[in-house]
């Protein structure tokens, strides 16, 4: 009987060695371990054994069953693994083929630059103020110390709706509106659309965007203006950026300055971008003219302030190396995709 059991075990193990698929594995299982299988029949034949032999043989049968079950289980796992491997091999794809096209948009380059500027100034404690684009002549000019017929009006030829209403030629009227309403401390930037009568060409547009800033408080100095602009320039153009101030004239500030930043392309050595000067003009700035403060009901003997302004288009063009302003308003998707 022992030999018989061993023979069955060997036969089964031999068969299992060559199993190729689940179906034959199952057949083998049934053949040996099934209700009518070879091992079961041996158990059935145990009735003829003596009471002493029975537990011994029973134990042997169980051992063989356990051995076979284990082997079958292993073979099954092995088969599953092989099957999976085969499947995986078949499922190989060309990972160099392009991905599914998902629609994603891009922020316009002007918004990208505007957002950066806003971020810098919000970080320095500024709020964002807005105001109308179709504006009273009073706010756009007169309150800014530019009376009717002043030659300064010529340098920013404006669009008029009527004698008293103009398309704002700068975002400064927003500053006036804020100063009229709010007592110092005032710390704002005014981003927005402005209008000047310049025909469209590669470097001009009758519509463009400005960001102006205004700080009014007790004890604000020109040193504060310079420090603020330094922080701004370094944040926007890189840590190595330097600024340079040149005296200039604006009606609503005194002293006034034009502000250059060291060239972002050559770092100041001189190149095509900066026309070999090493500097690029990006800002106008100055200390708020006492007359302007007075006009807004702020006592210039108690308070002082500074203001600055820059063109967003020119900054974006410099930043992204865009050579034609018209591209910014054409909205060709192939252009917009690049930012």
């Amino acid at each position, binding site marked *: 009987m022992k030999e018989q059991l061993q023979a069955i075990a060997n036969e089964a193990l031999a068969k299992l060695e060559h199993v190729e698929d689940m179906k034959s594995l199952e057949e083998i299982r049934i053949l040996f371990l099934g209700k009518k299988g070879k091992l079961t029949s041996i158990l059935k034949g145990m009735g003829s054994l003596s009471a002493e032999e029975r537990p011994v043989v029973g134990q042997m049968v169980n051992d063989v069953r356990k051995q076979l079950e284990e082997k079958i289980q292993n073979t099954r796992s092995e088969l599953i693994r092989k099957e999976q491997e085969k499947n995986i091999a078949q499922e190989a794809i060309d990972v160099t083929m392009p991905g599914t096209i998902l629609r994603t*948009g*891009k922020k*316009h380059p002007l918004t990208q630059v505007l957002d950066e500027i806003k971020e810098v100034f919000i970080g320095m404690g500024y709020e964002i103020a807005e105001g109308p684009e*179709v504006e009273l002549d009073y706010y756009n000019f007169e309150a800014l110390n530019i009376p009717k017929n002043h030659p300064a009006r010529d340098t920013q030829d404006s669009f008029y709706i009527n004698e008293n209403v103009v398309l704002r030629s700068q975002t400064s009227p927003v500053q006036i509106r804020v100063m009229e309403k709010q007592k110092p401390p005032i710390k704002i930037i005014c981003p927005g659309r402005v209008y000047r009568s310049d025909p469209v060409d590669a470097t001009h547009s009758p519509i463009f965007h400005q960001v102006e800033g205004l700080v009014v408080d007790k004890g604000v100095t020109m040193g504060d203006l310079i420090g*603020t602009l330094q922080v701004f320039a370094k944040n926007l153009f890189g840590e190595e950026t330097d600024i340079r101030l040149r005296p200039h004239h604006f009606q609503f500030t005194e*002293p006034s*300055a034009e502000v250059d930043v060291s060239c972002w392309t050559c770092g100041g050595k001189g190149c095509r971008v900066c026309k070999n000067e090493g500097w690029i003009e990006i800002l106008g700035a100055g*200390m708020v003219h006492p007359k302007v403060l007075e006009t807004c009901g702020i006592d210039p003997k108690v308070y002082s302030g500074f203001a600055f302004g820059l063109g967003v288009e020119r900054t974006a063009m410099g930043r992204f190396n865009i050579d034609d302003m018209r591209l910014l308003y054409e*909205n*060709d998707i192939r252009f917009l995709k690049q930012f």
Partner: protein
Amino acid sequence: MKAPISWLKDYVDINVDMKKLAHLVTISGSKVEAIDDLGKSIDKVVVGRIVSMEPHPDADRLKITQVDVGKEVIQIVTGAPNVSTGDYIPVALVGAQLPGGVIKETKLRGVESYGMMCSIEELNLTHDYLPDAPKDGVYIFNNEPELGMDVKEVLGLEPVIEFEITSNRPDCFSIVGLARETAVTLGTDFKKPEITVKEEGEGKASDFVSVSIRNSELCSRYAARTVTDVNIQPSPEWMQRRLAAAGMRPINNIVDITNYVMLEMGQPMHAFDLKCVDGGNIIVRSAQDGETITTLDGQKRKLDSSMLVIADENKPVAIAGIMGGANSEVTSESKMILLESATFNGTSVRLTSKKVGIRSEASNRFEKGLDSENVIKALDRCAQLIEQLGAGRVIPGIVDCYPVKPEPVKVQINDVEINRLLGTNIDKEWMFELFEKLEFEVDRDSMMLTIPTFRPDVRVMADLAEEVARFYDYNNIKPTLLSGATSTIGKKNHNQKMEDLIAQLMLSLGLFETYSFSFTSPKVWDRMRLPEEHILRDAVVITNPLGEDFSIMRTTTIPEMLGIIKTNYNRKVEEGGFFEISYVYKPIKEQLLPEERKVLTIGLYGNVDFYYLKGIVEQLFAQMNITNADYSPEKNHPSYHPGRCARVSLGNTDIGYIGEIHPEVASNFECPKRTYIAVLDISHMIENSNMVKEYSGLPKYPAIGRDIALIVDEGVLVKDIEAVIKQRGGKILEQIKLFDVYKGEQVPEGMKSVAYTLTFRSMDRTLVDEEVNKTMSKILHGLKTNLNATLRE
């Protein structure tokens, strides 16, 4: 303003090189735009004289010349057709540096040549600078300069500095003014012009002329000199060179002298032929309406009473401060002339110059407001040059009419306040000395400054601070960061944050942000199919637009978005999605300013449909937590497809339209037939959004789903079906999901099948089928009675 360096050096010592000079004066406030270094790239080009000239044996067009260049006579083979023996010409010697390269010894058809005769182009000069140079060919000197002399010296080639002059500094519109600034900047001496007039003519000026000012508001001073025995000639070369270098064309000695004095002193001058001034009586008066004058440029100009003219008893002879009349022009026949030096009102000159359409060097200066105290100095300088140049004999005396003499302006200086404004610690005495150099009168005891008459820009303390700061150098002020100021918190307000959210969502849904012009053309109304009286046609009109296309402020963003789609579609971009956040402008009756409303515009074309656009809008509302949106079919918007447009409202407020553009409009704008546009009012969206967020518990009990397919008349709106379901479904109805709309086989003609999955759930117990069944029958009953909907079998 262009300043030849030698002219500047007449009045100031310059002890630094050009580059350094440009930097320093830029930093002190006289911005250098450019340095035009005439002759910079020219070296070893000298004066030569052609001694002899023979034909070349082997070339018809070449000549062999012997040229005396001072130290030696050299052989040059030339092809120049315009030279002959005896001519004085510029010669580039062997080794000479020209803009075109270095000159080498060479052989032309076998004959040696040791240099080159130069045209002005080869010397990098223009005909503006040398008007008498031949258009084509070698330059020939019209005098006999010393042989071997450097041509740069002979032609007066020198660096010319171009300054940008701001409108507040009329004094810097002159060589003398720039020299003053330069001297203070460099700390060198400013050499004021020394002006003396001999007055060798007979009689006195008042014997020949009288001046009366009828309108002293527009003319505060008018001074005249007379000159006899006028000898009209070309002016000397040095003067011609300087004028040309400064950008003015030399004409004749008298005209050149007046221009020269204007450039030098900043005071425009004018010379009249005295015999053409009837009675010798100058009358400064307003023009009469309808009066005309032919100006020096030959144009007949119409005048009106807002303009100031210089007239004699009978006629205007000049438009004051702008241009002289042809009727009194100085010609080669002129024997006696009248020199004018006057101060006209800047605004008046500016407005008149605009009206008559002449901008001259003179008007450009007058506009900025000139110093009446400079009038006599300039007139005398003019007389001095006339004497020096032998252009005539100056008659003694000046007829000076000066009705409005300005009071000296005094400003108290306060060094503490200046330092406080600048954030500096500049010494008081340093300030006093600076102001003295700038020709302010300084009273150290009273700290009172008397402002020079040529500085109308200095009136208050802040102006003094600027003077101090610009010579201290702005860049020497120590940068600080608002150490004294109150600290503030920077942030965006709610609306600004919501706009960011809207933009962010549009980007994440695949739309590209655009920027379009807020101007438009009234022509777009017809192309948008707007009827005559349509409200959108009521726009803010620009009185001085850049052409019709930019003549009104837009009342809708549809045309610009269609323009963007057209641009991309025409350029063969297959599909596109765009959005823009921008204003529309609506005139409000009896209000000066229009209402500016921010709108979100979405534009789509390509592989999209109405529901794609609506999906975007629904996503937007979901993100903004807007829960009261309603869409109703809109058949009457003229620009939209009447069957594919919805009016969007939030609560009771219409906030815009979404839909397919009317095919006719799409074609008018050259857009694809299926173009989708939404325009939605942003502030209404923000008002209806609720960004206050609160957690509500996740459902604990299972849901029960039921599918139904309804047969309804095809005109019934899904919105109406859902309203009934919602109303009858009660509290346990959790979700209504439309999954199919079908017309065709198995559905009767004129009907449609609409299929839903309804989900029921209770928050506090497990629902049982009977409860759901009861609700379902309520719903079905409601649909039957309200919409005549039946269950599809």
